[in-house]
């Protein structure tokens, strides 16, 4: 019997939570919308879009001749070797020498360190394919930089390793869409964060709320029975 009472009270608390949410619904919805709108505005109008262009390279043999055509056995070791080499290529691609070359060739106004922040060199797993990506606020520039870097890398590899091993598969095209800011993601995250914050705020307000609105308020916090309720039909004055 007491268990039922306990369950009853838990049920009441759930209903109370819904009541609180309903009462503060306007504030909660308003805050959530505001956060989402602010995030959207900032994403769409304030933040500078950043574009990324990618050049795809293949780090394998330059030419295939009857003598050096790969057999299944050799292919495995070739891949392993290539993997090692590719790590070298990664390092070379981001070396100061190479980057400086790129900067000189296309007259970039930045230091190699700054350029290296914009550059990302990645190896596609299980392949000998290298992707050189460069970020820039100007999409054309991004493409130009990516292709230039690829070009300089190929030359560098030739010079340093004396291999004609790297070649371009896909040159970088001018990207249409920026990779950042991620407008929808920002807005959604802001909305969720706003919602959580708003709900928390609502409960904080409730906790500090000193007003008396319902018979439950009276019975729960004052511990006195309510003997009648005079409804506010039109405007009943009080004195």
């Amino acid at each position: 019997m007491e268990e039922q009472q306990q369950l009853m009270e838990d049920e009441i608390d759930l209903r109370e939570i819904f009541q609180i949410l309903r009462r503060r619904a306007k504030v909660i919805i308003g805050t959530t919308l505001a956060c989402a709108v602010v995030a959207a505005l900032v994403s769409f109008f304030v933040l500078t879009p950043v574009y990324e262009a990618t050049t795809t390279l293949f780090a394998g043999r330059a030419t295939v001749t009857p003598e050096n055509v790969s057999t299944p056995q050799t292919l495995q070791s070739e891949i392993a070797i290539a993997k090692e080499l590719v790590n070298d290529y990664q390092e070379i691609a981001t070396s100061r020498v190479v980057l400086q070359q790129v900067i000189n060739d296309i007259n970039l106004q930045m230091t190699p360190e700054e350029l290296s922040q914009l550059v990302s060199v990645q190896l596609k797993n299980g392949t000998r394919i290298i992707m050189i990506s460069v970020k820039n606020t100007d999409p054309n520039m991004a493409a130009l930089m990516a292709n230039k870097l690829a070009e300089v890398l190929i030359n560098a590899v030739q010079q340093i390793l004396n291999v004609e091993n790297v070649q371009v598969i896909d040159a970088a095209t001018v990207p249409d869409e920026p990779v950042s800011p991620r407008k929808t993601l920002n807005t959604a995250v802001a909305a969720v964060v706003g919602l959580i914050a708003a709900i928390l705020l609502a409960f904080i307000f409730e906790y500090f709320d000193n007003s008396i609105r319902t018979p439950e308020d009276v019975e729960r916090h004052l511990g006195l029975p309510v003997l009648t309720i005079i409804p506010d039909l039109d405007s009943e004055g009080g004195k």
Partner: protein
Amino acid sequence: MFPGPELVTLHNPSSLITESYRVLRTNILYSSPDNPLKTLVVTSPLPGEGKTTTAGNLAVVMAQGGSQVLLVDLDLRMPSVHRLFGISNSAGLTNLLVEDRSLESVVQKDSVGNLDILTTGPIPPNPAELVGSKKFAMFIEEMKTVYDYIILDSSPCVAYTDSVLAGRISDGVLLVISATIGKMDAAIQAKKNFEKVGAKIIGVVLNGVNKSHLGYSSYYYYYEDDEQGKAVRKKKKRTHGRM
């Protein structure tokens, strides 16, 4: 006599609000079946929560129920019972207590019949003293032999001690709280004030409750046009929460 519009029980006996006062009357009578209640202090924590309106309407429905009722304006700081009933306040309780005037000379009869009203009379410089005086206590005792019920409309009880003093010598206290301007901490303080002197708060009247807080499920109440006995139905929507 020109009763004000707040006296719904007089002007509109079949309205929902009058019904609420009848419920109040019944619930007061049955709140403590062991100790019959004759003297009732009506007060509220803060001013303007509706205690005089409640006291007036309650007195009316009690009189309409057949009892002999005396409504006393015990708010010697801001009396308003006379305004509520549209009667004069040239003489009243203070004359009776200070000048030893007789009850008959100062009490006024209401149109309801069974309802006598004692306004404050001239406002004294020392309200708390008067309310706490032996003379007043004796006056109340005497009235209990004449009337079935004595309703004392008193000053707000957080700022002033009058109601608490009156509560001490009464059978019960009714706390009127406004759902629009009422404050919980004031109400809690009011409760403590009465507990300290051993006065019994029999319950709360919650005044001006917003319709959306009333939890009737498709509750149908009706108004009645007395002359024709026709009924007009008004439907309330179900909302969460309870009445």
